């Protein structure tokens, strides 16, 4: 069986409000903490949807659009940088599992 990349995997996910360009973020990350005092930047590898990434300059960025609402970053971040909530059904993103 072919190895799947993260984008191929996320391509199988049914996201809500996919057509909305102004979807409201349900997770807010204080990236100042990520890029200054965080000793491990663990969310860049524990997030199963790779929503936390490092650019070439080593700066951390967060995007909520690919988030699959697993909850991981809310526990893995012990630096107080993640403000986590559920997406609003109408204005937010989030998932609609076909199998679950």
């Amino acid at each position, binding site marked *: 069986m072919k190895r799947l990349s993260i984008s191929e995997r996320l391509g199988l996910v049914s996201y809500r409000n996919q057509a909305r360009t102004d979807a409201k973020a349900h997770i807010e990350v204080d990236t100042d903490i990520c890029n200054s005092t965080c000793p491990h930047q663990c969310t860049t*590898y524990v997030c199963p949807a790779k929503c936390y990434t490092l650019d070439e300059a080593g700066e951390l960025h967060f995007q909520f659009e690919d988030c699959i609402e697993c909850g991981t970053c809310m526990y893995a971040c012990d630096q107080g940088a993640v403000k986590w909530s559920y997406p609003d059904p109408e204005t937010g993103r989030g998932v609609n599992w076909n199998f679950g």
Partner: protein
Amino acid sequence: MEEKFDCIIVGGGIAGLSAAMILARADARFLLIERGEFCGAKNVSGGVLWGSDLNELVPDFGDSPEGFERFINHRRLTFMDDQSAFSLDFKSAHFEQTPYSGVTVLRSKFDAWLAGKVEAQIEQGTHSESSFLATDILVQEVIQESGRVVGIRAGGEDFFADCVILAEGVNNLLTRQIGIEPAYVPADHVAVGVKEVIEFDKSVLEDRFQLNGRSGLTNEFVGFCSDGVEGGGFLYTNEKSLSVGLVLGMKDLREKKKAPQDILNQFKEHPAVRDMLTGGKVVEYSAHVVSTGDIDAVPERLYDDGVLIAGEAAHLLLNAGKAIQGMDYAMRSGILAAEAVLAAREVSDFSGAQLSGYQKALENSYVLTDMHNFHDAVKLLHDPMMFGAVPNVLCDFGRQFFTIRSEPGQKSRHMMTAAVKRHSSYWDLIKLGAKAARAL
């Protein structure tokens, strides 16, 4: 909303729907609110629903199998190193009688089916116009008045009830809002589950896994599958697909600097797993946090004035090595929470003191009894030897034992001694064995 409800349930997962079924049967007036587009839309499990509680909620569910995937009559526990797999395998006709003691489910389908059964039950009562399962609505806040829970706020509207059941799952924001659990829950209280659903031609699946009609196989894995991280793997047969995934300790994952989706790739490429997946097509990738099942993570009190916490919102789950039991725990705790609400209604007293009967009922049921009794087993699973030395020794021994060379052979006890020496020491294994004997 004009009148207040007898009860508001937050969450239409297994705990919430189970509570709703009991309330509907007693003809109570309630509101269940689920944020997903339909019940199940947001939920992920491995998923085997163990035990026989489903039969209590939906009698004879086994005769009309639209809700579940397969009943389990074949179980396998596999220890793996990078090349080998050493399994304990048990299949029995005893498991073929209804009520089944384990069925595989896909939550998007199962929860929606259970919600349909609850709605049918509501229809039969006098509140068919005033009890609701409301979906696609997010509960934003629990409303408290002088320290007592009186209702919830959702979609800018307030709803009131004598009692609220929080059945919101492990990511329990409202349970934290009312202070039953601290606002920050540390990584060592939870694990992360990642999973794929892999579809097959049904006849290929049946032939490959020796399935007969609706029978099914569960396979748990320890060792190489979790790449040195505390946790394990699973492979479960659905009607036309497999659920394949991992549950990985969150703190250990953070410390070992590993990505769950990479470990899943590696697991799928293990020779023993690879050959089970040949020809399949991945149709969904998912992930969700799951409780570790450590009773130390369960809040001290699962009730307060006007409120009860059920299911994984209360970290009720057992993972003592032979199965993950979160759904049956959610089901039973949901049932007991609804029964506590009905008992409170009898005496018109929804104080914490009255509702504490819920916690006592949990203590008397398998839920908290087993979480206490198997606490040592849960702790034992965190021992690195359990996912390192033990599977390695077994696979090494297996390789020697099953190899036939054209030369004089060794006695098995010499093989075992050599295998132990290569990966561990007898003394360490004896210590572990003694712990295991006490724990199990």
